[in-house]
């Protein structure tokens, strides 16, 4: 059923690769094409619902040797990382699309090399892509070019590193963020760029980053 969707994409983008696993249809496209492919699916296949943007770091995909057990594998030993062959393209970004009308789903996959982690944003097509792209940026450090407000979503701005990358040490400690003085809310402008108001340094959504018309 969903094979038709893959064909639809391949008709326009001949170098797109289709694959399937357990009934999930995947089409892998080049990074430059992703906006066009998603727009094509959205407009011609009525895939109006963007379920999720997920990303995978393939660094240890083949080389991971431990079996199960939390005790056995709390941390990838340093020597294992050293010898790891550089997997390229290392990152995959998966857009899970769905058509409510036709009840079809399709995953658009983009593969990224670790030296050039940039994907064009699809926020003009799906508003829900806003937070999902921020989430992926937050967790993997993949930059979405053209995103209106590419900030960390779940973590705080002082966080060092990208936790869902496979080479992020599990037991790494983050530096403590000093607490700033709470500005006087009524008299006198506070330190934030918006004048008196919320202490900006503590937030990762400062007002200065928000276009007032971005949400409407």
């Amino acid at each position, binding site marked *: 059923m969903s094979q038709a969707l893959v064909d639809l994409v391949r008709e326009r983008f001949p170098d797109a690769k289709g694959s399937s696993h357990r009934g999930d249809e995947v089409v892998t496209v080049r990074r430059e094409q992703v906006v066009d492919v998603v727009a094509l699916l959205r407009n011609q296949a009525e895939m109006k619902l963007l379920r999720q943007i997920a990303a995978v770091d393939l660094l240890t995909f083949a080389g991971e040797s431990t079996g199960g*057990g*939390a005790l*056995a594998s709390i941390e990838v030993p340093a020597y294992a990382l050293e010898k790891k062959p550089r997997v390229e393209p290392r990152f995959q970004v998966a857009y*899970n699309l769905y058509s409510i009308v036709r*009840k079809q*789903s399709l995953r658009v996959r983009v593969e990224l090399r670790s030296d050039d982690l940039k994907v064009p944003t699809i926020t003009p097509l799906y*508003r*829900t892509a806003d937070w999902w792209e921020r989430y992926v940026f937050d967790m993997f450090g993949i930059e979405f070019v053209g995103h209106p407000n590419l900030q960390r979503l779940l973590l705080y701005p002082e966080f060092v590193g990208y936790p869902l990358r496979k080479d992020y040490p599990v037991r790494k400690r983050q530096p403590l963020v000093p607490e700033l003085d709470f500005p006087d809310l009524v008299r006198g402008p506070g330190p934030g760029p918006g004048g008196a108001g919320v202490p900006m340094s503590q937030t990762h959504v400062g*007002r200065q980053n928000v276009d007032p018309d971005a*949400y409407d």
Partner: protein
Amino acid sequence: MTVNLGPSHPAMHGTVRLIVTLDGETIVEAVPEIGFLHRGFSKSSEHSTWHQVLPYTDRLNYVSPILNNVGYIMGVEKLLGIKDTERSQYLRVLAGEISRITDHLTCIGAIGLELGAFTVFLYAMEARELLWDRISELTGARVTTSWTRVGGVASDLPPGWEQKLRDCLPRVMELTGEVDTLLTRNRIFIDRTRGIGVLSAEEAVDWGFTGPCLRATGVNYDVRKAHPYLVYDRMDFEVPLGASGDTYDRYILRLEEIRQSHRIVLQCLEQMPPGPILIDDWRYALPPKKEVFGSIEGVMAHFKLITEGIQVPPGEVYVYTEGANGELGFHLVSNGKGKPYAIQVRGPGLPILSALPRLIKGHAIADLIPIFDSINMIGGEVEQ
């Protein structure tokens, strides 16, 4: 005037922070800030076996944990390409629908609570307590259920449980009816909710809404109907649809879904066949204790499953079920070893919460409360 609401503010249940710019009492702009409850679900899961992820899923949507258990385990089963036994499918649907009722009761109660009708909240909680007692008897814990297993469920119905459930369901529906009496046709409530936080159907899909919030706008998308999983295709239930997508519709739709879930629960009890609750395949499911105690094969299979975990063939799937707040998706990647290579969860609350600035813009600050409650943001699943 900029007002900071949260992360500890009576209206921000869960831990979310809203930075609201006001003009008088009208909200000009609102910026939600999340992550105060971020516990690293994905990263933790990558360092556990497939089985050990289960307790984490309890803690995603902590008001309806069984639905998360079921959603996750179905993902693993999809990766494995197996199906669980028929009785366990019924059990999953049964417990899942009870969980859905508890979730909706929580949401409705919270709407009442924060609109000042504390009584409604307590009636809803009383009903929820009864159901959580049943869940507790069934799974061994009220909230941290960890009840499903690959290929089945952990425990069968305890003796006499069915009758207990049948006895307490009327009381639950009676309390739901009292909530209905207190709120649904009350003009104060209607004035507070009708026409508040309206979203059109196209916009709702664009924002990635699913579940009751999407159906309140009139879009007929319920995973249980669109892609029937487990035994939902054998159940006779309806999907209530709203018309205008406002807060009132979201409220009344949840109320109606409680009634539909009640129907499903009763049907499950009637149709449930006897039989095993776990598949008899020692590659995936733990052998029965008798075999473990008494036979060398059983012990070996047992040890292999515990130490190495379930060996899931490599692959990548996205599995979606109908959570209480919408489509609960798990994006699972396996590399053929005993641990999940990558897990990312699509909490239904995250896209909905991201639309909160759009929903509350232009409304009074007092309207923030019913809108925020009616989208039923659960911190656990949004912030993972």
